[in-house]
């Protein structure tokens, strides 16, 4: 098996799957050509991420990182969440196969985009 137990757990039992109809911000990354697409939806109250949901088309790593980033982000301030890097997500999962680190580890980017979307809307 190419993935560790934690990655497999997040892949087979992903947390926070779905969308948020009245989301405060939405972030989309990836494209179908490379095989990974993610959409992250956030709810924000007093600059804190109160809810995060995701929808992902992609491999096991893409789904696991999406699930993990929602867990990492919920309860954090926007400022803290913007500091979550791709490496942080991979580390929190106990590591990813090297080949997956670039192509399928886009979840942090999607979260950042959702936060930027929220900040744009607020202005």
């Amino acid at each position, binding site marked *: 098996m190419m993935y560790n137990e934690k990655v497999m757990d997040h892949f087979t039992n992903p947390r926070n799957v779905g969308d948020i109809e009245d989301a405060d911000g939405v972030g989309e990354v990836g494209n179908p050509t490379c095989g990974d697409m993610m959409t992250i939806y956030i709810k924000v109250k007093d600059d804190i991420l109160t809810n995060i949901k*995701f929808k992902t*088309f992609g*491999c096991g790593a*893409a789904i696991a990182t999406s699930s993990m980033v929602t867990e990492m982000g919920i309860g954090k301030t926007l400022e803290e969440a913007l500091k979550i890097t791709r490496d942080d997500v991979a580390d929190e999962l106990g590591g990813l196969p090297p*080949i997956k680190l670039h192509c399928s580890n886009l979840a942090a980017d999607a979260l950042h985009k959702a936060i930027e979307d929220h900040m744009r809307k607020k202005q």
Partner: protein
Amino acid sequence: MKPIYMDHGSTTAVDPDVVRAMTPYFTEIFGNASSLHSYGEQATVGLNASRQIVASAIGAHPDEIIFTSGGTESDNLAIKGIAYRNQDRGRHIITSNIEHPAVLNTCAYLEKHGFEVTYVPVNDRGLLDVESVKEAVRDDTILITVMHANNEIGTIQPIEEICILARDKGIYVHTDAVQSIGKVPIDVNRIGVDLLSISSHKIYGPKGVGALYIRKGTNIEAISHGGSHERGIRAGTENISGIVGFARAMELAQARFDGDCEHLRSLRDRMIGNILKSIDHSYLNGDLEQRLVNNVNIRFSYVEGEAMLLLLNNKGIAVSTGSACSSKSLKPSHVLEALGLAPEEMHGSLRITLGRENTEAEADRVVEALIEIIGKLRAMSPLA
């Protein structure tokens, strides 16, 4: 629950009967066929008998069989051997764009060494049009190498017709029959082919052994050098135990041919029918008629292959995928690309290759698992 193996296009389990045939050749009949003493003589008896069996299974003469380490070596020997030996007649080779890497990368290697290669494209059903092969022929064409049946989508190419057009022009024809042997009747004279690659481990034989059929009178050069084994065309002490196992597997494949084909075709059609009927936005890759009896290759919209494969694996079901994410190169399958599929369609393709031991109950269990898994993945897909 009992695991289900449906990846026979990758490899097969060795038949117990084959293991029994091989066993004495490890410890008792261990001689080197090149030795003059009785140990060598016994090994030679096994080697000759095996050559006779493999030859007669494809309608060839024993002198026309060269044992190799498998399909890849057979393809390399056929293509490089013909190219090197016949380069004074011309340096042009024709192949298709859906060949196995053993052929494609050998052709690419020859391109770096002064040969020209035309890659004739297949149509959207994965079939080669004989007319377009004919159009690719030049005065300096020395070889046409087209696979008999494709390893991913199972399409069977019109190799007989290609042989007819090549014969008029004195062009050698090679075919990689690694996937078709045991599933499509093969008689080298009826097909008219000059060189044909086969492998043992796809037909319930051991890995690391195969053969190249070389029609008598074919001008071919050795590509590995050493002793005078295999008529000087393939140096190296013969893998007698492997060759004996390969021959036994060929015998079994021949004896079970009709029953195997009927069983596999019925399972294949049952699975294709049930999947297309019960899963929306699922489509068959490759032609339905000109297709290997054991190949099911389906693309599912909005989901990705590696994710499907891993979830199936969790349920004890082994299949394969053409998705880029599952390949070490991160490139999608060149075969699915050749069908003109969009990237997201290629990512969602699964290959199921059935085998002798698969049952209807297993076929139904796999379809049930697919319905559940695809439902789950589509529920989290932003594309669905």
